[in-house]
């Protein structure tokens, strides 16, 4: 693990001005308008991504990983930090001090769902640390009129 939670202090949120995304079968696809790149998020990353809609701290994401995917707190902290660093590196999330982390969690309707242990994790199914996978470049889209 290359990141620790101290390296990603503060609150983060999705870079809404530059990003569009959609979840399909519990995995998100994210497109970035400025770079015209598209990315895939695995299942655990998608859980964290949803928490970043309104903003959250790395510590909150770490707590969610620990509770939802039954991870050791130290491991969860490192994975959450690495996820944020990677998403920030691709400009998919931005640091935003205006976001109130605790308020976000209390206000989120699905906060209980985010903290509920994931059935696959409880059943001992394969867990993958949250990952952002760069898939490539989106060429200009063409509407066919032939």
């Amino acid at each position, binding site marked *: 693990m290359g990141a620790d939670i101290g390296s990603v202090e503060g609150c983060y949120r999705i870079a809404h001005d530059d990003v*569009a*995304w*959609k979840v*399909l*079968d519990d*995995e998100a*696809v994210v*497109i970035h*308008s400025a770079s*015209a790149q*598209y990315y*895939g998020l*695995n299942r655990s990353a998608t859980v964290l991504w949803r928490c970043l809609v309104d903003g959250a701290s790395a510590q909150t994401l770490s707590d969610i990983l620990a509770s939802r995917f039954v991870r050791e707190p130290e491991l969860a902290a490192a994975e959450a930090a690495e996820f944020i660093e990677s998403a920030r590196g691709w400009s998919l999330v931005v640091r935003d001090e205006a976001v109130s982390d605790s308020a976000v969690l209390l206000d989120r309707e699905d906060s209980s769902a985010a903290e509920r242990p994931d059935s696959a994790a409880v059943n001992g199914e394969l867990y993958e640390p949250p990952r952002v996978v760069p*898939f*490539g470049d*989106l060429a*200009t*889209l*063409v*509407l*066919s*009129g*032939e």
Partner: protein
Amino acid sequence: MKQQAALDVARQLQLVDGERFDVMFHGLSMDPLLFEGDHVVVEAATAGDVQIGDIVVYCDRTEFPARRLVAVDPRRLTLWCDAWPDRIFHVAPNAVVGRAVARIRNGHRLEASSVEWRTRAERAMAVYRRQRPRFLVRRVGRGLRRRLPGRSV
């Protein structure tokens, strides 16, 4: 997620985010309203959102054709091209991904709500209505041919 599945989702996101992503029209089928190289702004829409006369964008395998909606029934939408009056296209309602809401040509933006756009739509629909009896005759002919086995046409 497999890359092709991700690309399909990404393309749909790109398509309906026309203010931020370039969506270009290719071909001559919607001339003169849409022409080769025009930038088209597409708004996300379902079959329930679109209206007769709208230019509807739908997903056909890996392509996104844009054609004018001329008729709707619960099972399918009938689409037509302004510059190809002899052909019609049938599309399942769940294939609809959006509708064109503006065109940008040489820096000029033409909105779907503009008089020019709506006038072109009305003209196109008038031409379609004149053509419609031919499509109905063709359809009846196909139905009859199916009911007369052994008759080659």
